[in-house]
């Protein structure tokens, strides 16, 4: 993957276009955030609403909800561009295909990962986390959602040729996301207890870096096959 000035230009165009499209149709990216809220807020209803109990559960609830809503959102990542021929034009643009898909994944992260991370502190407070934990919760979900989006891009590429990704997509993506869940939930837990979350955050960052190098290549290979 060779990245030149014109590839940066192309990537910026993809980001700009996807953000423009999203703002013209806000429903699509608001839905996963709403879903995230609903799932986290189901936990107190299913459990007992004692805040000290909920606090123990908060990291798990936040991260399971984040993973589910990210899988829900990822199905849209390549689907529309695949259907209307845009991905074909990406493949024929002369730019590195993996690079363009990485740009699309980045746009997707801005539209789903960032809102999710911004919503998480509210959900965390509702689950009994102290206000001091807000920066930690925000940071851990912000970083963790990067690798969730990248793993999701692989899954979205693999299921692009299918009529519906659905349950199969989650079966492919969720096992791959186990490390993200472990380190992310641990980071959130530490921040809720007011301890240093540096350790798991480094590991989350490592996962993201690894994802940036591997996921676009795998997604590009899978998408190319589905374009035939």
């Amino acid at each position: 993957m060779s990245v030149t000035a014109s590839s940066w230009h192309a990537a910026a165009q993809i980001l700009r276009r996807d953000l423009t499209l999203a703002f013209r149709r806000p429903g699509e990216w608001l839905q996963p955030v709403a879903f995230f809220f609903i799932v986290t807020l189901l936990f107190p209803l299913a459990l007992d609403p004692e805040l000290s109990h909920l606090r123990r559960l908060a990291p798990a609830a936040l991260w399971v909800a984040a993973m589910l809503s990210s899988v829900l959102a990822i199905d849209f990542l390549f689907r529309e561009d695949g259907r209307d021929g845009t991905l074909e034009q990406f493949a024929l643009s002369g730019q590195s295909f993996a690079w363009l898909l990485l740009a699309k994944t980045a746009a997707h992260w801005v539209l789903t990962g960032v809102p999710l991370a911004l919503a998480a502190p509210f959900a965390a407070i509702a689950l009994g986390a102290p206000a001091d934990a807000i920066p930690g919760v925000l940071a851990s979900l912000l970083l963790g959602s990067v690798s969730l989006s990248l793993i999701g891009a692989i899954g979205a590429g693999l299921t692009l040729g299918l009529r519906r990704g659905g349950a199969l997509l989650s079966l492919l993506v969720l096992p791959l996301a186990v490390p993200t869940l472990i380190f992310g939930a641990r980071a959130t837990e530490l921040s809720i207890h007011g301890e240093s979350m540096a350790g798991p955050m480094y590991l989350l960052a490592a996962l993201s870096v690894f994802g940036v190098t591997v996921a676009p290549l795998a997604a590009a290979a899978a998408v190319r096959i589905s374009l035939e």
Partner: protein
Amino acid sequence: MLRGLSLRLAEGQALQLLWPNGAGKTSLLRAVAGLIPVEDGQLLWRGNRIEDDRAAFCADLAFLGHDLALKGDLTAAENLHFSVSLRRRLAGGEIKAALDEVGLGTRADALVRQMSAGQQRRVALARLGLWGARLWLLDEPAANLDAAGQAVVVAALARHLAAGGCALISTHQPLDLSASVNRLWRDPKEAA
């Protein structure tokens, strides 16, 4: 699946594939573009094997398939701006001029979703000129177009060929491109 094909295009030449439906016109165009792997055989562009330098070939290539790669929620001008920017930087006024050429100058700021199928195809045709590619691969370029729209295709092709480009065009309906196209290929079994 296609077998035993051989064809050659020179500068300023356009070849119209008038094969019957299901003969593999689309597959041939997609294979030339590199979207489908060629199992046996080779593709040369300017004398070099395409897989040796795909980026250079893609820079010379404009592909217009069944799917127009237009976003309904973007305007015609925004769509053009995006698809050209993937390849090169645009100068001011280029998009306006290109839309004028396909007769959509007044519709530049209309959402593509609100256009008719024929108008959408014209937007896609405007893109071809902006790319500045040498080789056009057009799959049914005149689908959904009325007589005036077909004239737009013919004029665009004529400009392209006069500038030294070449084109490979598939049409199943009797589209008269004789004003610009100089070779016809009616049956995949004939050699061309």
